[in-house]
């Protein structure tokens, strides 16, 4: 057993003044469970934090040359990327690390979902993680406008316009966000303040709380298990592995930033400066938001002008809000996991959410629809068909892996997502009609399972 008397040198000097012994003691005894889950999942929070750190550092470097203003925003970014030594690299690192941070964060969030690591006592860890996900999207959205180019202008016009759907306060919020009724240079000033000041302060605070929760409670064990088969000392064993993972991420980031300084060349994953924003120019064909907003962008296209007494965008954003609220409240909705029982329905919800988002994202890329450079519009029916033919086999392959490897037996929601895609893409039904036909099936199936579980509960000892 180590105690404060073992500390020497600088540590002893600090401990005498600030009494850090209990903290050191905590880290000496902290262990990471092994043999419970694939250890890869444990690194994703760390890699997200790493990319966030790179964002802050490269953002500070960009601030040296960036000048917000109608006559300076675009020009300073062009100067930075063409004249300043390694300016292109700093911008490329900033953009790449932003995208990689969101990839890492989304993977971290879905792994937490699929491993039901959100269950008590970690509900608030999930909620703070969800808040960080929202902040990451906020960083992406606010930073997108700062180069003041054509793409940024219209992406911001569409993104901010959604705010007007908020009941009662919508128009006021829109005016506050934009600094007026339309996207102007006033919007850029506000987004600049958000991007470099408000969001970082909020992120630092919530990351601090999230890390505190993770350190205090440790990694989640599989459902129903009270201790891991083995453990690894957090310090130095796991911390050094974490550091190695950060080094791998740094190398990958630098290679990508150098080889592809303007992004991956996929719509929504590229940052060519292009033309300067002109509020009097029409939106150009093929305009797309960043890849992580594509599913919402496509969903906005799928809604008709009016639905159930609401305007299409309002109805669409209401659906998105409800879906996100369900996602945020999963730790409380998943009653089986709360009782330390397996909850296959929520694992399937995670897979279903992935299939739902992937299908809309593929559609947003207009895969298989033709059109493009000559100004021809992609054929929506051909796009839906091609995307369904990608999603359905992909979904079936995922299902097969779940059956063979993870022994899953619950596929109601992921099956509904696949049926929806098939009815729409292959059956030729409109997206919402296919959704309306599909939606009752999981409701009936889940209701049937719930009734059957309730009937068999007394004899089966409560096992679902």
């Amino acid at each position, binding site marked *: 057993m180590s105690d404060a008397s073992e500390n020497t040198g600088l540590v002893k000097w600090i401990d005498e003044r600030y009494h850090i012994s209990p903290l050191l003691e905590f880290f000496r005894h902290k262990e990471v469970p092994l043999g419970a889950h694939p250890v890869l999942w444990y690194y994703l929070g760390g890699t997200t934090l790493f990319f966030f750190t790179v964002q802050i550092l490269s953002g500070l470097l960009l601030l040296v040359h960036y000048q917000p203003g109608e006559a300076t925003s675009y020009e300073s970014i062009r100067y930075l990327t063409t004249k300043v030594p390694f300016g292109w690299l700093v911008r490329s690192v900033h953009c790449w690390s932003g995208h990689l941070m969101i990839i890492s964060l989304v993977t971290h969030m879905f792994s937490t979902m699929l491993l039901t690591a959100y269950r008590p006592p970690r509900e608030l860890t999930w909620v703070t993680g969800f808040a960080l996900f929202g902040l990451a999207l906020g960083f992406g959205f606010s930073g997108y406008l700062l180069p003041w180019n054509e793409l940024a202008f219209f992406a911001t*016009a569409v993104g*901010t316009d959604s705010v007007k759907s908020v009941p009662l306060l919508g128009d006021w919020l829109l005016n506050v966000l934009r600094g007026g009724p339309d996207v102007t240079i006033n919007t850029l000033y506000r987004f600049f303040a958000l991007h470099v000041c408000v969001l970082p302060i909020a992120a630092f605070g919530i990351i601090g709380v999230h890390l505190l929760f993770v350190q205090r409670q440790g990694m989640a064990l599989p459902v129903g298990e009270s201790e891991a088969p083995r453990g690894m000392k957090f310090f130095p064993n796991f911390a050094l592995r974490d550091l190695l993972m950060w080094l791998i991420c740094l190398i990958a980031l630098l290679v990508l930033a150098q080889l592809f300084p303007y992004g991956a060349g996929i719509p929504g994953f590229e940052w060519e400066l292009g033309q300067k924003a002109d509020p009097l120019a029409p*939106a150009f064909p*093929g305009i797309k938001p960043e890849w992580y907003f594509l599913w919402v962008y496509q969903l906005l296209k799928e809604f008709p*002008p009016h639905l159930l007494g609401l305007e299409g965008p309002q109805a669409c954003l209401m659906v998105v809000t409800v879906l996100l609220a369900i996602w945020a409240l999963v730790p409380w909705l998943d009653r089986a996991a709360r009782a330390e029982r397996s909850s296959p329905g929520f694992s399937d919800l995670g897979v279903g959410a992935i299939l739902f988002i992937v299908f809309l994202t593929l559609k947003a890329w207009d895969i298989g629809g033709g059109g493009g450079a000559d100004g021809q519009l992609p054929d929506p029916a051909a796009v839906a068909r091609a995307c369904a033919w990608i999603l359905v086999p992909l979904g079936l392959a995922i299902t097969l892996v779940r059956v063979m490897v993870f022994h899953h037996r619950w596929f109601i929601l992921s099956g509904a997502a696949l049926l929806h895609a098939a009815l729409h893409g292959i059956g030729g039904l409109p997206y919402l009609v296919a959704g309306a036909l599909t939606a009752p099936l999981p409701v009936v199936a889940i209701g049937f399972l719930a009734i059957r579980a309730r009937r068999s509960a007394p004899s089966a000892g409560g096992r679902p």
Partner: protein
Amino acid sequence: MAGLGWLGSVLYPVISYLGPLPMQGPSGPVGLTRAELTKVERDKFAIIPVGTRRVLVVEDSAGELHALDAKCTHEGCTVRYVSGESLIWCACHNARFDLQGRVLAGPAPRPLSRHGVQRNADGGIVVSVSKA
């Protein structure tokens, strides 16, 4: 009660500060500049600022002029005139309107507002924005 008063006295100035200032702009008829006239002649449309609005001025294949709000009623992107198909199109979410502003296809929930437009004897074009 005192707490509410205190909260109000803090929030009211902050909320007022964050709100945008009223935008100024010409409210009467606006004539197109030479560059805008050239644009209409070349592309068959131009987007011009009138007060706080963006107005799309179109010259159709019969030479008739139309003026409509250039802001799509779906998500606020700026629309364009597609002369080959004689329709107004928003590239953001594929909304289509006819030259009267009526929705032809796509997700736009409302028609584009129409404005007054006329050609002067000297060839100039004047747009008058309707109040609606």
